[in-house]
């Protein structure tokens, strides 16, 4: 059996992120706590065989993803992923800089979304179909690379990209619609993609 103290010391720092992730996936605190407990139990059992030095966080998220699938498989909503094939190869490249910072030309829509309360943002995310939500959370909240997300969710990188694309687009639409609904922007502008 693994050394419990050493295991806890190494994995403790990831617990808040795993809990937030679990809460977005399960949409309620009791289930999220169950999922985090199950994740830590599975990780602890597998820890003696853990060899991916430096990839502990990704390893824990993969265990959490698998635990989520087994615990909540029946509830899963499957999006249509028929047209996922044939995506080209993408060369990985470092972080972007320049234009993101320079994108100061903010639209009224973007400003309204920026000002939305946390609960609106969380609800819009939680309304996304399961696999889209997972991809968006792993990328935008946790900052994993496409390759890491492919490893965590055990799907090809093209599938990751497609899920991210659709998930983000749906999220943009939902938040834009909400901004209009709340009267935060005068009229609905095209989302730009």
């Amino acid at each position: 059996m693994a050394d419990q103290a050493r295991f806890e010391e190494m994995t403790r720092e990831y617990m808040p992120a795993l809990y937030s992730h679990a809460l977005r996936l399960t949409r309620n605190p009791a289930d999220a706590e169950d999922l985090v407990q199950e994740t830590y139990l599975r990780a602890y059992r597998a820890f003696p065989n853990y060899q991916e030095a430096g990839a502990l966080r990704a390893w824990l998220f993969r265990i959490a993803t698998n635990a989520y699938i087994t615990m909540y498989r029946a509830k899963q909503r499957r999006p249509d992923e028929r047209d996922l094939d044939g995506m080209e190869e993408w060369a990985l490249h470092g972080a972007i800089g320049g234009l993101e910072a320079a994108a100061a030309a903010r639209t009224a829509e973007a400003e309204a979304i920026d000002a939305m309360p946390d609960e609106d943002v969380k609800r819009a995310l939680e309304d996304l179909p399961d696999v889209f939500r997972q991809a968006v959370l792993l990328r935008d909240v946790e900052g994993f690379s496409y390759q890491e997300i492919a490893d965590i969710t055990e799907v090809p990188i093209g599938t990751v990209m497609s899920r991210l694309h659709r998930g983000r687009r749906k999220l943009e639409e939902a938040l834009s619609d909400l901004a209009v609904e709340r009267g935060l922007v005068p009229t609905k502008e095209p989302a730009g993609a």
Partner: protein
Amino acid sequence: MDCYEIREQLYAYLDGETTVWRRRAVARHLEGCPPCLEGYTLKVTVRRVVAQRCQDPLPADLESRISALLAAEAAD
């Protein structure tokens, strides 16, 4: 690349997961195309909002409950 093609590339560009050639082409296009830049700005905003607003406090006793769970597992 035209506007349609550029917009298909924006997420990969946003994520820094694109080829050097594409990256340059997108950057150049955004500089000269306000509608695409607006679309890009919206994507940047949504990503930032998602990144910032989804932190939830850890329930106070979860860590100790997990500790107890692992101790029980170790004792088996």
